[in-house]
């Protein structure tokens, strides 16, 4: 157990300890409990504050007196994400049915569509990153 207590944040478990944990239920339970306890302690200060927080607004105004907080108050809503996703799919389906079969064009357009879908997903994930981080946290709690 001392070997585990000596580990740093994010440090991998040594192989010998992993092997021990495979067979020792008591240590496994203790380690799970310790990890949970440490997580509980640092979780509250990781909660993000709203973008419209007074301190954030006053720092932005100090940095740039011309700054308007309108942009902060109007992020892209989930409805807009869903509508644009559906439109993208409809366009792809419509394109597939509207053109005559041409192998070269089909391959080229498939690549373009694949690029569009990947870009859409990347932008969606990075602009809603907090949601995904929370989701991972919930999964970690469940494990």
């Amino acid at each position, binding site marked *: *157990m001392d070997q585990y*207590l*000596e580990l*740093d*944040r*994010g*440090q*991998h*478990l040594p192989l010998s300890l*992993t092997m021990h944990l495979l067979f020792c239920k008591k240590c496994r*339970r*203790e380690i799970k*409990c*310790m*990890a*949970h*306890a*440490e997580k*509980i*302690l*640092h*979780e*509250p*200060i*990781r*909660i*993000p*504050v*709203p*973008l419209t*927080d007074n*301190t*954030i607004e*006053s*720092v*932005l105004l*100090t*940095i*740039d007196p011309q*700054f308007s907080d309108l*942009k*902060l108050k109007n992020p892209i809503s989930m409805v807009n994400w869903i509508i644009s996703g559906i439109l993208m799919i409809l366009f792809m389906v419509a394109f597939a049915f509207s053109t005559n079969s041409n192998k070269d064009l089909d391959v080229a357009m498939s690549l373009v569509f694949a690029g569009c879908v990947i870009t859409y997903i990347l932008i969606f994930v*990075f602009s809603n*990153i*907090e949601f*995904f*981080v929370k989701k*991972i*946290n919930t*999964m*970690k709690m469940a*494990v």
Partner: protein
Amino acid sequence: MANELLSEIEHSIIKKRDALLVKSTLSGDKNAFAKLMSAYKQRIFALGMSFFKNEADADDFVQDVFIKAYTHIDSFKGNSLFSTWLIRIAYNTAINSINRRKEYLPLVDEEIIVSTDTSPEERQIRLATKEAVHEALNELPEKYAVCLDMYFSYDIPYMEISEITGFPVNTIKSHIFRAKKILRKKLEELVK
């Protein structure tokens, strides 16, 4: 093992997100900097409360730190996490502040930040953890209190705590090891 993997994924997502936000900030996007502030304001505020012990001064401190961070953001090279870089600025700002009171109030001593515990069991574990860190703090010279806080409350690894505070890694490691031993004992009692 699964937990470890999820932690690594979370760590790498946060690192990439922060790198993108820093890049956008450098190209003049103020919204990107607002997102960084949103993510890290609680941490800086908590550190401010530990040093200044009142909300008004802690709020001024938060503004001070973020303005400094914005001014020097080009010096962030991405070698460490953005949060570590920011806490280093915050720690140095607090240490150099002429208004600072002499003693540091550890985060575990007060409910500076509202807890997110959802069940009585979690509240119990949280209490036991705080007691353990507190017990370990009592056996330490006061100047090391911030190290335990950085590890247990701010989730910063040994090496980065050493870089921020200037204390030797081995000293930090042994103090944290002692605190973990107390925590283990407390949790054992709790489970029985």
